[in-house]
């Protein structure tokens, strides 16, 4: 027996009243010695900020989760620690993107910029064309790690099937 799944619908513009009632963007506490700031911008097909999006970040290896709404400039931020590398895979965060206008959340991954060797041998990252690999690796920026998410366009973020 396989029941049909309940279909997805957009999170809509007012998700914050239900999903952002408390601060949940710290996967690890700020004072954790391993804490890294993860920042980024969510951008639409014309490069404009998406001010009513929501990002969820999941560190499956460390069992740590967080979410962040986007502000008027499309900016989101997390406090995270770099997950341990598992079974030959590079450390990463699994990222879900939600927004008004997005009828189903989209899955992507953020890899870390200071792991060139692990990234080069990661089975998923290394299976992608070079331009797509670059899109999934965050950049160092003023002591933080920056990961912009582009929904469309030449540098569209790579989204994965579930």
């Amino acid at each position, binding site marked *: *027996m396989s029941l049909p799944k309940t279909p997805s619908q957009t999170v809509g513009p007012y998700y914050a009243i239900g999903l952002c009632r408390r601060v949940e963007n710290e996967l690890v506490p700020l004072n954790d010695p391993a804490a890294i700031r993860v920042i980024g911008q969510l951008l639409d097909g014309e490069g404009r900020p998406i001010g009513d999006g929501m990002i969820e970040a999941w560190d499956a290896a460390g069992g740590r989760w967080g979410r962040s709404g986007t502000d008027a400039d499309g900016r989101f931020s997390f406090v995270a620690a770099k997950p341990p590398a598992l079974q030959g895979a590079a450390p990463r965060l699994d990222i879900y993107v939600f927004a008004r206008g997005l*009828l189903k959340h989209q899955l992507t991954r953020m890899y870390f910029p200071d792991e060139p060797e692990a990234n080069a041998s990661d089975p998923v990252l290394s299976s992608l064309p070079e331009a797509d690999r670059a899109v999934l690796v965050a950049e160092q920026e003023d002591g933080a790690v920056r990961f912009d998410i582009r929904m469309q366009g030449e540098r569209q973020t790579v989204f994965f099937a579930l």
Partner: protein
Amino acid sequence: MTSDESPIVLPDDPSFGDDVQVDYPGYRSTRLRAPKRPLVTLPEELHSVDGPVFGDETVSELDYDLTRQHDGEPLGERIVVAGRVLDDSGKPIRNALVEVWQANSAGRYKHQVDQHPAPLDPNFSGAGRCFTDDDGNYRFITLKPGAYPWGNHENAWRPAHIHFSVFGRAFAQRLVTQMYFPGDPLFRFDPIFNSVRDPKARALLVSEFDLATTQPEWALAFRWNIVLGHGGSGTTPLEEGHA
């Protein structure tokens, strides 16, 4: 018809199964936001990866009752919304975090962006949370939300709905969706509802009136079960077909 060439509601297309058409043209905000490139299939088996587990402190005792979050009672038609969270084999998902948010009975959200000229209710915030019990049951007490206008096309109104967010066991079981009420006259005009192209799948978004759970002299009840995707290994052919 909108000013561009897209009809607001496209004809049914059962080949979509339980999936939603993410670039549905009638919902105009999809135009610059739905990804244009095909999704990349992951070689590894994501469906077996566990999702986040939430501690008891995530939910307070009265979070399930949206009518008791303020000093006074909110205005509107009090209702019970209850159902089960299941996996696609019909097994209950226990301890699933279910979060809801909605407009008040006048069709207004307590959100700064919502400028619909309908009254806010000082006794209604419109948000709730609960965990499912051992049989996968969730239950909320709330008000029937009002329909409200939006700017998608001329004279556009959303059918009454409650937003749901659900975390299953597996990371891949994450679901955000909307629950509707039976017999809403706005269904056939709403592009978000109709972005689910298979009418059988669309019907899964509509709750049922439930006399058995209705509480005499107190509140009507609506029943709505939520089926999350596969939490074990492998994907269904339908998922692959729309990947």
